[in-house]
């Protein structure tokens, strides 16, 4: 006999009641001070078991028999509803729970470490080149309107760099992606002081060089190395990959926090920032390798890349510390700091590592090799 409560359909009032089944086929419900019910067990609807919460048994007239005697209910209805209890059996089996935990943790790590970058790359390369043009369209116009000024470089110098790029560098990408048309743009990026040295590529193949960058570069090789790095981003469709990865991360974060009480959001913001910088770092390394390999083919010393990168970094740091008028010690301390903490947040790989790879490629270059095996110490 199972003790419980009985509610008329849609009524809050409840009476004590008991449920009996003599033969496992029919049932008898005895409601105190009320009607009695008898019938076949399979006319009753039972809610799925969930932890130890009260079970509701709905009778044909919509009235409810509720009981906390879960085990008795499970025994009584076992033969009528085999599917009902599967989730509950998984949830209460320690082996299943541990397995679920392990699978969840491992698949989460694997997904963010390999699955998402891999999937984004596949999707990015499966999309037509028009997608790239779509993303890039208006970007340059937008940047010209709000960020850039007209280049102050003399026209002759611009033409020289363009001509060299067109005849010597762009042809290196022959056979990679015939739809990309590379085009150089010169712009001034003024930050109120002396201008910012930078070079970047739009996914359409437009590469933008700032005046300060051209000014800081001391040889054609240095400019070429940076141009090849930017071409690497374009060929590997890194912008598109970032868009796709960003979409996934946003959707996942939304789904995860949508379920929470809102307090975990603050930690998740930092987490997703770290994640996307991590992907950006991988892209930089990929573009570096692209540049180094093509430099070997074009007989340009790969060390030029690390030379110009170092010069740009030093210039930016000086600019930074000048504005804050720090002592030499402070500057060094801040630099040390950035290395330890901000590594995780940085969208660029650690400089030493880039320099080391450039050095090894340079060794290969000196031996006249056209491919190079890199040995990296962790």
């Amino acid at each position: 006999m199972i003790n419980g409560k009985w509610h008329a359909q849609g009524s809050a009032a409840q009476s004590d009641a008991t449920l009996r089944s003599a033969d496992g086929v029919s049932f008898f419900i005895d409601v105190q001070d009320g009607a009695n019910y008898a019938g076949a067990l399979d006319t009753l609807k039972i809610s799925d078991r969930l932890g130890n919460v009260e079970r509701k048994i709905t009778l044909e007239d919509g009235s409810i028999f509720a009981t906390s005697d879960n085990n008795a209910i499970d025994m009584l209805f076992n033969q009528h509803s085999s599917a009902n209890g599967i989730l509950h059996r998984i949830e209460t089996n320690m082996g299943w729970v541990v397995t679920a935990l392990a699978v969840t943790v491992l698949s989460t790590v694997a997904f963010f470490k390999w699955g998402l970058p891999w999937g984004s790359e596949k999707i990015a390369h499966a999309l037509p080149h028009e997608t790239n043009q779509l993303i890039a369209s208006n970007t340059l116009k937008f940047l010209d309107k709000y960020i850039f000024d007209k280049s102050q470089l003399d026209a002759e110098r611009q033409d020289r760099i363009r001509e060299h790029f067109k005849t010597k560098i762009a042809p290196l990408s022959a056979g990679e992606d015939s739809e990309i048309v590379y085009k150089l743009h010169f712009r001034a990026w003024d930050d109120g002081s002396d201008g910012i040295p930078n070079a970047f590529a739009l996914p359409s193949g437009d590469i933008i060089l700032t005046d300060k960058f051209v000014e800081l570069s001391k040889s054609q090789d240095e400019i070429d190395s940076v141009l090849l790095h930017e071409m690497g981003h374009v060929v590997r469709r890194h912008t598109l990959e970032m868009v796709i990865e960003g979409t996934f991360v946003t959707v996942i974060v939304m789904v995860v926090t949508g379920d929470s009480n809102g307090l975990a959001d603050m930690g998740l913001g930092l987490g997703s920032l770290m994640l996307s910088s991590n992907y950006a770092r991988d892209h930089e390394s990929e573009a570096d390798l692209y540049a180094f390999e093509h430099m070997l083919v074009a007989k340009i010393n790969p060390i030029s890349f690390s030379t110009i990168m170092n010069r740009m970094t030093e210039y930016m740091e000086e600019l930074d510390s000048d504005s804050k008028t720090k002592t030499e010690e402070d500057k060094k301390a801040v630099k040390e700091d950035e290395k330890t903490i901000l590594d995780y947040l940085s969208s660029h790989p650690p400089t030493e590592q880039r320099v080391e790879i450039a050095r090894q490629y340079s060794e290969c270059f000196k031996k006249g090799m056209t491919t190079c095996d890199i040995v990296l110490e962790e």
Partner: protein
Amino acid sequence: MKALSFEGSGMEYFKIWIVNVLLTIVTLGLYYPWAKVRNNRYFYANSTLEGRNFEYHATGKQLFIGYLIGMALFIAYVVIGQVFPTGGLIVAVIFMLALPWIIWRSLKFNMRMTSYSNVRFGFSGELPGSYLNFLVLPILLFVVIYGGLALGFMMLMGFIGGGLIVGILIMLIVIALGIFAYAYMKKRNTSYIINGTRYGQGEFTTKVVTRKFVNILLKTFGLGLLAFIGVYALLGAILYFTVGMDGMKTMMSVQKDPAAMQQVMGGMMGVVMALGYLLFIIASMLVLAYSLTRQRTYVFENTTLDEKITFKSTLKAKPLAYVMITNFLAIIFTLGLAFPWAKVRLARLMLENTQVSTDEGFNAYLTQKVKEGSALGDQIGDAFDVDVGLGF
């Protein structure tokens, strides 16, 4: 007055949760609506008052179509936002215009899917009220605060006439006006949701006034100001006594071993940064807990069901802040695995500090029939079952 209680346990819910997560992963997210139902059922059914419990009645199937539509729209929004920022803005505006309708449908759906002691809740608020509460008032508030602050700031900086004193005065007025406008919005939201809520044939009513919300928000504002000044002062002091001292030491010993000195300072800065982040989160949670518990107490004691059944909140700021902060730390340090335990703890605290007068009893309440809307409308409404509530 009797308090509600929560009869679930962290361990039991952990098992349910982890199986939900697993199934959601292996079905690539398609299981999510069923997972949500199981979660909600667990929390509702374990919430009891006088031996009778709440129940969540929605089924995974009901939520599924809405979930698919919602996901598709959301992904479209994110993609458009990433590809064209201006396009994303347009989609955001359209979404903003649709949001009050979505909230209204969700309120109706979620109330209808909730029962206590076999009697369903309901929501009878009208759609225009939702547009007033979730579109018009927020926009007004935004315009008042940002417009006013910008005006004051421009005068302060001398971009437009008016001068320093008028600029400061305008900013102070805007802050006061902003607090009043926010309090007014809070009052309207609370009234809209509570006065529209039904329990069977019973009607909830609340008699909250703007003045009380102004009072609570002013105190919250002051407390927030104090808390952040405190955090800044503390961080400044820590920096002074660690990096500041080291800086002096470096000056003296820079010739001996500069590399080692930098190492020490680098590590120190990292600790201070992490500590600062943590302190700000703790401070915000304290302020949040204060604001939430005061509003909860005020709203509960002015709310009745059919003018007979009364409510009371005994939740205090300190225990709530304690649970929020320790939950947050536990979730961070277990990389999310403590989430079920944290959720159970918070639910228990909230319920045990909710009191209801039970002398009248609930036996006379009956579930009311509702007019069925169009099937499509229902499905779309179900789809977006956004969780809207008063936050307590």
